[in-house]
């Protein structure tokens, strides 16, 4: 807003405007957080009340305090942490491997124009294939253990990573490549000095997508074959008709998936600083 009177000293003016702005910012931030809290509490509160007053079928929907109680007692007796640890381990490994292998695949394809042309239709088919349906095949190939679960995570992430990263390789301004070619750089040097460093931001932002995919992979993998993990807890919860356990597991998954996503977002921010 324009201020009415003329301020003689510009420094005072700048300070005043800055202060006003900061105040407004803080007010807005507070408002946002308050509204978020209201939404959250309203939702949780409504669920709790609906559960306690039996407006909803508690058997199917459970309610927050019940879920928290269950999680708390499981946490205290030490039976929850191994499950979290297992799933987290599978997810993180699958995530890292998926990103790594996808990037390596992209490098391989990039290294040869003719290879790219040859592989193109195969990649398209593999990419549009619902990898989830392949689950049992992994069991056949890799046995009923961690390997199958991690393979599922890998299968889901690797092709899409390769495609996105390859695309980023190809989108690099050819003039950057010219710069090193002028100095006589060969393909390997061009890659190491230009293509790879220039693609780091894309690779990191692919990570963000891969976080979600890696969780899908490990949970689905645990549905197929497992004796521990959050996916196991979910399917076991169904088996023994304990939906409180199912909801609790979903809650933990949501927390850790969000944490992992935020960690990647933080890395991205650092890299783009």
């Amino acid at each position: 807003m324009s201020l009415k009177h003329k301020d003689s000293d510009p420094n005072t003016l700048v300070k005043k405007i800055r202060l006003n702005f900061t105040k407004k910012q803080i007010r807005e931030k507070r408002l946002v957080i308050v509204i978020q809290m209201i939404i959250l509490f309203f939702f949780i509160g409504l669920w709790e009340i609906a559960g306690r007053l039996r407006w909803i079928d508690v058997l199917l929907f459970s309610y927050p305090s019940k879920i928290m109680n269950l999680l708390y007692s499981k946490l205290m007796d030490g039976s929850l942490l191994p499950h979290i640890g297992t799933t987290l381990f599978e997810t993180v490994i699958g995530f890292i491997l998926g990103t790594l292998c996808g990037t390596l695949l992209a490098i391989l394809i990039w290294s040869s124009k003719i290879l790219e042309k040859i592989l193109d239709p195969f990649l398209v088919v593999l990419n549009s294939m619902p990898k989830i349906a392949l689950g049992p095949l992994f069991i056949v190939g890799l046995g009923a253990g961690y390997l199958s679960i991690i393979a599922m995570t890998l299968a889901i992430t690797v092709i899409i990573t390769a495609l996105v990263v390859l695309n980023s390789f190809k989108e690099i301004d050819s003039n950057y490549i010219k710069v090193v070619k002028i100095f006589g750089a060969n393909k390997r040097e061009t890659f190491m000095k230009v293509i790879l460093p220039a693609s780091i931001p894309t690779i990191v932002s692919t990570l963000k997508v891969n976080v979600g995919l890696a969780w899908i992979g490990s949970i689905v993998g645990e549905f197929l074959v497992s004796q521990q993990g959050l996916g196991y807890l979910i399917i076991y919860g169904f088996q023994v008709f304990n939906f409180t356990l199912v909801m609790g597991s979903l809650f933990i998954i949501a927390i850790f998936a969000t944490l992992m996503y935020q960690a990647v977002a933080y890395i991205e921010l650092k890299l783009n600083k």
Partner: protein
Amino acid sequence: GNDDDETTTLRVGEVTRSIFYAPQYVALSQGFFEDEGLDVELTTTWGGDKTMTTLLADGIDIALVGSETSIYVYQQGADDPVINFAQLTQTDGSFLVSREAIGSFDWEMLKGSTFLGQRKGGMPQMAGEFALKKHGIDPHNDMELIQNIEFANIASAFASGTGDFVQLFEPTATVFEKEGTGHVIASFGIESGHLPYTVYMSKSSFITENNDSIQKYTNAIHRAQKWVETSSIGEIKDAIKPYFEDIDEEIIEIVIDRYRVQGSYAADPIVDVDEWNNLLDVMIEAGELEERASHDILVDNSFAENAIKSLE
């Protein structure tokens, strides 16, 4: 053959985690396998298909799963057939649950109702339809049969209002009864008669090479079967409780009692010829079997017989 002091590791895959398999958990928790010098690693490979796949792919050594899967595998032309060597449960494990409380139940009541059945091709569905047909009900014409829902979700679908009747496993049936969501009015276990419902099986080649271990395994199972037969409900509950942390103790007891009373837990590991033929009848009735698979080929009762002898 192994020396007596050495422990042999056996990888076992169970089709699901259920109180229906109580003797198995008893054998584990009471150390019967250890007594035989076995180290048993138990994995849950959710679903018959995955269990059998894992067995065929050598992911596990022994599978606890319905005998029908071994017949399917045989029917598809296996070179190394899967042999049933020890029976754990001998009846179907599901119950008929109604939404409304029914004073005196008559199977005729199912006619014209909406029935939430198990998914096609599985043993529960075949046993269920077998029982219905036995009572003169044509499941596909006399009632509205819903059988498109995956096993783990049938209970939720019923609880959220689908169907008048539902075919449910434990502990869901008991939980529903307790919560008033449904009422157990009949047992498919009783109706279907004795079947090789859940059986330990292994590849023919594995059995040949590990005769000793299989025998020890069968011995431990049989010991557990006897233990379950003779112990009190409370003792059994305490023995299997570590495997069912998330079920009410009270419900565990009700379920154990219900299964034991209707004779679901097999008394011995033998897969009888009659039972086998009954299974074949059920499968043929369901249209899933092309030719009868002979008991001679797919069942080896020698381990069970030795186990019974050794316990006497």
